[in-house]
């Protein structure tokens, strides 16, 4: 058992999101809409030493199994993440983070003149392109610091 696993205890049932880029754990929770209100236990490791990433974050959510589509949204801010579904302390399934074709309602368009920034009944939508995302409405491309544009409570 490695040092970082000792920092955050094992869970019985739920999801372990490992190899999240250092400092992005809270954004992962925000994207997944996990704020503790549903009563689930959440454990976080932030800036844990990692051979592969230098520093990584790790998120453990008890009693909730993430779907593939939820996992795919994480690819925008945590492309290296690995997801293990845990049942009765054992890894029951491993999900790969795959880039989705588009994401809806997760990011806010940085173009202040975009129609999604006006007072209109429209939800933001971004097409996922090679090395970033692109607003479906105004075509603005975001490549750097995508997490800065998260539009989640």
């Amino acid at each position, binding site marked *: 058992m490695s040092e970082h696993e000792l920092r955050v205890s094992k869970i019985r049932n739920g999801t372990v999101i490992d190899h999240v880029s250092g400092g992005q754990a809270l954004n992962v929770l925000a994207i997944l809409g996990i704020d503790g209100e549903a009563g689930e236990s959440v454990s976080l490791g932030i800036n844990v030493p990692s051979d592969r990433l230098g520093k990584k974050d790790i998120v453990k959510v008890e009693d909730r199994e993430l779907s593939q589509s939820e996992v795919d949204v994480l690819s925008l801010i945590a492309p290296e993440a690995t997801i293990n579904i845990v049942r009765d302390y054992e890894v029951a399934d491993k999900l790969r983070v795959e880039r989705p074709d588009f994401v809806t309602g997760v990011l806010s368009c940085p173009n202040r*003149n975009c129609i999604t920034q*006006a007072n209109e009944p429209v939800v933001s939508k971004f097409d996922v*392109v090679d090395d970033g995302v692109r607003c479906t409405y105004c075509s603005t491309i975001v490549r750097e610091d995508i997490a800065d544009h998260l539009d989640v409570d």
Partner: protein
Amino acid sequence: MRHDHLISANQLTREDIEAVLDRAADIAENPAAFREQQAGSVLALCFFEPSTRTKMSFDTAMKRLGGDTTDMGSVESSSVKKGESLADTVRVIQGYADAIVLRHPSEGAAKMASEFADVPIVNAGDGAGQHPSQTLLDLFTIRENAGLDDLTIGIMGDLKYGRTVHSLASALTNFDARQHFISPESLRLPRSVRFDLHEEGAQVREHTDLDEVLSELDVLYVTRIQRERFPDENEYHKVAGEYQIDLDTLDAASDDLTVMHPLPRVDEIAPEIDETAYATYFEQAHNGVPVRMALLDSLLTHE
């Protein structure tokens, strides 16, 4: 046209474009044959920003097809002034008309409107986004004067905010066109347009000086550099002055050069050019009617 709406030039294939241009050529040749083509149809004109050419040419186009138009009027005199959303405005107006022409100051407005409308939406300019019907008449003009294949075109001026430029650059990727973009550094093409051109494998070069490329050009497409794009008056005059053309500028150009401009111009093209064979911008503006007739007829008949 197989499309329900015309939102962006990016959606147009070469086949789409040629179908509209061919129909426009038929209309220009024999307008009488199309006089009753859209009898009984109504086109709504929704211009949230001022317009002369685009609005009047759509109005004329619909009437010359035997249809009629209904005009939202200025924003000041409409429900928008009371705070109505664009989505609601579109949902209401689609009940009055068979198609809606929309100009709006926000990028993506036409795309959003199309999601709320069951009738065709034509994007007549969305902020600094797209202006695809202008592109169709630009392409018609280029085809008539220089041909659309083996074309070397220079596009000059405000490439960053110029929606006619964004649409034209995108549409030209359907043809064998070498595109030269000439602008001050601060008004280069936006990243999204450069991305699309790259994805399409377009032959593109960027310049800050027209002289670098003028002699190679078949077409020079000039656009207006707007005062409000610069922090101060001096900087504007200095930069804008470098992208104005007169007869001296064109000394190095081919005799067959076609000079275009989406208009209105301020002083980008000296009036002395108007009477030369280079000047094609008034013909270009006139082409707005047959091309928009073709576009409307195509959208309304789904052909």
